[in-house]
């Protein structure tokens, strides 16, 4: 092997505390090194050109660059050596900036350390092998999970670009949280007026197949070739026949049920269409509310249905589809605010959540757009908003800022004065977080034009006195306790990942955090990708977001999906596990531990052997560390390559 070594000065970033020349000089004497030099900026265009020229001039078969972190520029230099005609894996990096020059002040030890890191890289490179990505065909169809605004956007963008899209929504209608909102900030335009047309587009698009009231049963396969089983939950209504006329709802005798869409304000019939603009506009029977299913004689809906769509015998149905990429857009749920005993833990009717307030404000909501106290139906004159409920509260395990509550609270304070001109709103806040176009101005308007009284401090207790609620808080700017008698208290409850997110993440094999949010591939550079190839994220399932941000992410995830499926064949990362068939004794330990089910048992002339599904293998190397005889090796990180690095340090 002929190795070339390039030691980067990185201007003075490295050269100030590492004797770069000496490192290069020493590297020149290392095994199989035929050329070693230093470079001012190895990653600059002349720097890369110099590497390319050296490869050709000295007929190098491998290159070591000692510069910054491989997490920074490994990809850059791999492309460089590839341009020079080498396989991109015939390249190693020694990190002498982040791990040497930036963390040590003395040139002496720094230089020794740099030399050793270069030696380790050289020793590893000597064992590197050319790796060639495998090509695999891809299904040009995308699955979008979740029909909120992010999922709708992703579906429409993909479909517009010519991709087949399957959209799965667990609720009877798409629309998500946005469909429950009355107005949107900071423009105060009507939520359903701007979302409605998009929902209709989904329903009418020839390339979008919508499975509403459905869930993901299982996911198998890998990027380009996922196989997904969808469970269509029994609606007990034949949707092909249902016209959405609503006669059944009118006639249903079981009317006093929990109204999910209206967040428990008002009540719903056992057979229901959640809201007038629902897509699809089809009825669903909730078995737990239906008299027929409770063993009572009923069947009134069936009797009145003009199309004979009611079917109490309907069963869940499983549908299997093939897709090439998956966008998860499962949104969020409100955190459990009933843990707050000091706010009544749900015991006081006039303490409600912000989402309930949205339904109250909505003209299509249970109160017809009138603000009323749930306890007695009176119009409240004094409304207290408490922000940061289940947000920024480590004591209940919700340390993060939910991000959108400051803005929707300002909107709700504005709407309150709009609905009830002689009302007074009080907003208890800790900080106002309003970094968005027109956002801060909006919170000012709430105060200046709509007279909302903002009080800087948390609320310690809410309790009833007479038919009022006493709210005891602090005004920390004033340095005093404050008390206000409220008719209605609205809690700006923060969000958390959808309660079903963890289960879905397990099926998709993507990571999630303790709050139920999916983990993106990189917090800055891969915000809509995951570490499972072919699975992308959009909207609040990755972390809480407002509408414009969710829509942007929907488009971003669509762009990623389109880029992935723009080719007929996909390349897979060749840094995967490889089985040495001769050495494998078929003990199956690797199969047991593989987190991705990327290894299976295969029969080789009557003997059982491990077989790696290269497209599924993510290259973690757990199997490699598990196999006692080392018959399964992770390419580019084989035992011998790691041992070479260890020995480079310990043995001359």
């Amino acid at each position, binding site marked *: 092997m002929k190795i070339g070594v390039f030691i980067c000065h990185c201007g003075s970033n490295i050269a100030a505390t590492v004797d770069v020349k000496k490192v290069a000089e020493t590297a020149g004497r290392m095994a199989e090194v035929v050329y070693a030099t230093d470079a001012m900026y190895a990653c600059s265009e002349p720097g890369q050109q110099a590497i390319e020229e050296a490869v050709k001039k000295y007929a190098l078969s491998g290159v070591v660059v000692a510069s910054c972190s491989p997490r920074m520029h490994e990809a850059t230099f791999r492309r460089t050596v590839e341009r020079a005609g080498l396989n991109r894996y015939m390249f190693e990096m020694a990190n002498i900036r982040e791990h040497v020059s930036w963390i040590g002040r003395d040139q002496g030890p720094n230089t020794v350390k740099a030399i050793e890191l270069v030696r380790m890289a050289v020793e590893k490179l000597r064992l590197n092998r050319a790796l060639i990505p495998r090509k695999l065909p891809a299904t040009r169809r995308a699955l979008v999970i979740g029909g909120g605004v992010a999922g709708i956007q992703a579906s429409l963008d993909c479909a517009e670009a010519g991709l087949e899209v399957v959209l799965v929504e667990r609720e009877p209608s798409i629309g998500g949280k946005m469909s429950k909102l009355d107005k949107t900030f900071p423009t105060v335009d009507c939520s359903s007026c701007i979302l409605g047309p998009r929902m209709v587009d989904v329903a009418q698009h020839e390339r979008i197949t919508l499975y509403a009231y459905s869930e993901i049963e299982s996911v198998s396969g890998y990027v380009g070739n996922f196989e997904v089983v969808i469970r269509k939950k029994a609606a007990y209504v034949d949707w092909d026949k249902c016209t959405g006329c609503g006669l059944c709802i009118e006639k249903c005798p079981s009317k006093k049920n929990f109204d999910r869409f209206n967040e428990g304000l008002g009540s719903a019939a056992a057979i229901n269409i959640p809201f007038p603009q629902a897509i699809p506009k089809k009825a669903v029977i909730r078995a737990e509310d239906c008299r027929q299913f409770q063993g009572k004689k009923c069947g009134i809906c069936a009797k009145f249905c003009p199309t004979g769509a009611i079917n109490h015998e309907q069963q869940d149905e499983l549908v299997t589809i093939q897709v090439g990429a998956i966008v998860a857009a499962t949104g969020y749920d409100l955190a459990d605010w009933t843990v707050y005993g000091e706010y009544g833990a749900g015991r006081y009717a006039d303490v409600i959540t912000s989402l309930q307030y949205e339904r109250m404000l909505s003209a299509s909501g249970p109160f017809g757009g009138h603000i009323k106290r749930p306890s007695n139906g009176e119009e409240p004159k004094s409304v207290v908003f408490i922000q940061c409920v289940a947000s920024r509260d*480590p004591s*209940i395990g919700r340390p993060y800022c939910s991000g959108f509550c400051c803005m929707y609270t300002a909107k709700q304070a504005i709407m309150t004065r709009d609905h009830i001109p002689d009302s007074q709103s009080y907003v208890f806040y800790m900080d106002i977080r309003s970094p968005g176009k027109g956002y801060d101005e909006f919170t000012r308007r709430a105060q200046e034009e709509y007279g909302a009284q903002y009080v800087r*401090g948390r609320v*310690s207790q809410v309790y009833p006195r007479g038919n009022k609620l006493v709210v*005891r*808080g*602090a*005004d*920390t700017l004033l340095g005093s306790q404050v008390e206000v008698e409220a008719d209605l208290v609205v809690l700006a409850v923060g969000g958390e990942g959808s309660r079903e997110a963890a289960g879905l993440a397990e099926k998709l094999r993507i990571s999630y955090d303790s709050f139920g949010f999916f983990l993106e591939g990189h917090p800055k550079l891969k915000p809509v990708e995951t570490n499972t190839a072919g699975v992308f994220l959009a909207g609040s399932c990755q972390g809480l977001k407002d509408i414009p941000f969710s829509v942007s992410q929907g488009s971003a995830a669509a762009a990623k999906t389109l880029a992935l499926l723009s080719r007929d064949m996909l390349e897979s990362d060749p840094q995967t596990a490889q089985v040495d068939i001769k050495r494998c004794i078929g003990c199956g330990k690797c199969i047991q531990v593989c987190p991705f089910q990327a290894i299976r048992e295969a029969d080789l002339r009557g003997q059982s052997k491990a077989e790696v599904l290269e497209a599924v293998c993510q290259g973690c190397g757990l199997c490699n560390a598990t196999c006692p005889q080392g018959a399964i090796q992770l390419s580019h990180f084989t035992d011998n390559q790691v041992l070479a690095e260890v020995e480079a340090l310990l043995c001359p």
Partner: protein
Amino acid sequence: MEHVQLGRGDTDFIRAVETESGQKVSRCYQCGNCTAGCPMSFTYDFTVSRIMRLIQLGQKNTVLSSKAVWMCASCESCSTRCPNHIEVARILDVCRHMSRRAGFGGARNVRLFADAFLQSVRWHGQSHELGLMAVYKLLSMRLFDDLTLAPDMLLKNKLPFKPHRIKGRDEVAGIFRRYAQGRGLHGGGKK
């Protein structure tokens, strides 16, 4: 209040409060929940959250000479509702210990009552309410407060005239003695 020189805060004081209370004061983000729920706030010169802020800035003298640290009733509202799980009441306790050790007056009557109470325990092993009241009244010169209660209490036979003296009162007195002796050696809480 004097203007505060930010760079001149007493960091030893911050550290001492943290070690003796076992709490991390930098966790306080000034939401004001402690203040909001504090039943004694109306008697304070600084609200609880301001005391926390003063500690964060190392304002030792202001904190230790404040009325607030003496008027806290240890009701635990602040600790219970602190979103950051800070045992605020314990921090106030610790400040009171420091205030006493450093010889700040604090709320005189509160301090005198505590002294009288402990004196009673020291003498008898148990607290003797009537004797305690007498001592407190002498110390505080508030001879006629609560006199209206006496008839009720006497009528209901709730105030034994003679203190109950336990057998182990020497042992209890020993605890106080060793405490007084060792006071220079330890900080009252965790070392």
